[in-house]
């Protein structure tokens, strides 16, 4: 953390504030004004037009006993835990690339990592929807071919008792209430966040080569090298990814909307808080209530972010 300043020195360094002014002005006008409007409208019965009725905390009282919202927090909880676990592949890939002997290969792998970012989402969506297609999809073909299907049927019969896997009937991955969350978790295998990898690589770069030489001398094996050298040094980046992940997952609903529609799909098991906010605003026309939902969601995200900052310690 930066050194705290005595008031006298701070006065001397007053021109440092000038550095923040441009950013502050831009953010205040173009980001704060719309956000403030959302907070303002959460106290109104507002249907998106300019007619609005002040109803004070009525929207917030309604949020408290909104069954669909609290059910959607269960789904989002599972997704957050899954996404946290899905951070690991990106870290491992970054470490692998970093440990490569030749600088030249490291550079070319870094370039190859940037390319997928350019491919528009439409293409990725097309491929993954095809992966889950019940009749032609790869997943069902692989399951049939490797006997995984019979395993699932047995599992379902004896253990799960959902009664959804039947011989001869293709598995409807995205239209069966029990299968939607697992499908959302599998989505995007092998879960490489190219942005994440680049950020970790930037962090790993600050490790001097002499540190590795010292570790080799002491006969440290590669796993201990990871735990004691590399992981601590990129903890700031990991903590950063955790924050971005929590915000992204809790606010995000694009994938659920594209795959399952505004109602959250079969059994409503694809319903997440962000999608419920979208549904209330655009399907039911209750913009004021959607703003109140937004505020409640904001408080959840804030709580999780503060928790993350407190418990994910970063020792230098």
């Amino acid at each position, binding site marked *: 953390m930066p050194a705290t300043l005595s008031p006298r020195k701070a006065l001397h360094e007053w021109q440092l*504030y000038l550095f923040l002014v441009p950013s502050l002005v831009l*953010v205040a006008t173009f980001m704060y004004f*719309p*956000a403030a409007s959302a907070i303002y409208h959460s106290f109104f019965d507002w249907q998106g037009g300019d007619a609005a009725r002040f109803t004070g905390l009525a929207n917030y009282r309604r949020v408290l006993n909104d069954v669909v919202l609290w059910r959607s927090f269960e789904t989002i909880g599972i997704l957050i835990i899954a996404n946290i676990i899905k951070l690991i592949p990106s870290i491992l890939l970054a470490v692998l690339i970093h440990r490569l002997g030749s600088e030249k290969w490291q550079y070319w792998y870094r370039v190859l990592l940037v390319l997928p970012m350019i491919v528009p989402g439409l293409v990725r969506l097309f491929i993954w929807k095809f992966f889950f297609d019940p009749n032609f999809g790869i997943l069902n073909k692989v399951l049939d071919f490797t006997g995984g299907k019979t395993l699932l049927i047995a599992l379902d019969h004896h253990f799960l008792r959902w009664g959804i896997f039947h011989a001869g009937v293709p598995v409807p991955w995205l239209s069966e209430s029990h299968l939607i969350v697992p499908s959302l978790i599998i989505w995007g295998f092998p879960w490489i966040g190219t*942005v994440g990898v680049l950020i970790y690589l930037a962090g790993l770069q600050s490790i001097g*080569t002499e540190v590795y030489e010292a570790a080799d001398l002491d006969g440290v094996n590669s796993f201990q090298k990871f735990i004691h050298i590399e992981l601590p040094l990129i903890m700031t980046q990991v903590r950063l990814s955790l924050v971005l992940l929590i915000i992204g997952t809790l606010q995000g609903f694009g994938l659920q909307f594209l795959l399952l529609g505004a109602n959250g799909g079969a059994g409503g098991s694809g319903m997440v808080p962000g999608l419920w906010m979208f549904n209330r605003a655009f399907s039911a026309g209750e913009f004021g209530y959607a703003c109140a939902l937004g505020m409640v969601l904001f408080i959840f995200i804030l709580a999780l972010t503060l928790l993350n900052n407190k418990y994910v310690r970063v020792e230098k």
Partner: protein
Amino acid sequence: MTDGQTIAKGRKSADWLKHLVIGGILLIEMFPFYMMLQISFKDNAMFNRSPWLPAWITSWHWENWIFGARLVTPYLANTVFISVSATVGSIVIAVMGAYFFARYRMPFSGILWSAFLVLMLMPGVANIVPLFLLLKEMHLLNTLWALVILGVAGGQVFNIYVLRNFIEDIPKDLFEAAEIDGASHFQQIMNVVIPLSGSIIGTLAILTFLGSWNDFLMPLIVLRDRQLFPLGVGLIYLDGEPVKEWGRTMATYFLASLPLIILFLFTMKLFVRGLSAGAIKG
């Protein structure tokens, strides 16, 4: 300082295994890229017959690419203008802002920082309407400057949040050394901050550039005259066609990303290698 190649021999031998794993993962990551390329040479009938395997070179449909080129070129000038100005503006202002937070713990910096943090956590439901009204008041509607300013403002919160972490990791004595030589804050940024966090600045620049290069929602709402439209708007029309011409769409998407690829090949060198190498020596 030994060159990279001769670093600890021990690690070199186990590299083929690493190459294998990295290569495998990258293959999966590059699959969409392959799909985009091979589909771009097919017409709908060929695509329907075999969506996955590339067609024989003899039956490639080059007219998809001509269609793509004719569609992309009119939008290029606007897109480059918006993306470059937004990226440069966003990074410069963000670096200054992050420097303020990271350099010293000034009075009120705690409040200001939480003000920034709050914005990042705020989910946007009805943000577009108030933003539009604001732009209307400022007579920025139907101008490219509106998109540049939105690009710069939009990137601030995220960029400052990321940059602050990295600038704080820079050892303090480097700053003190520069200060003793009489370097002003501005010179400290130029000589210490930028060289040391070159790669993260490069990554954020790529992200900001990409964001405004593909953006279609704000341009479509803010702009009215056709000749002001950027690339994102042109592409969204392709996606809207009820009869989806997959071949043409993919070819156009590839051509739309070509300038990005060329730019990254060069600027990647600039951010990754040039700057960081210098810092370690310094």
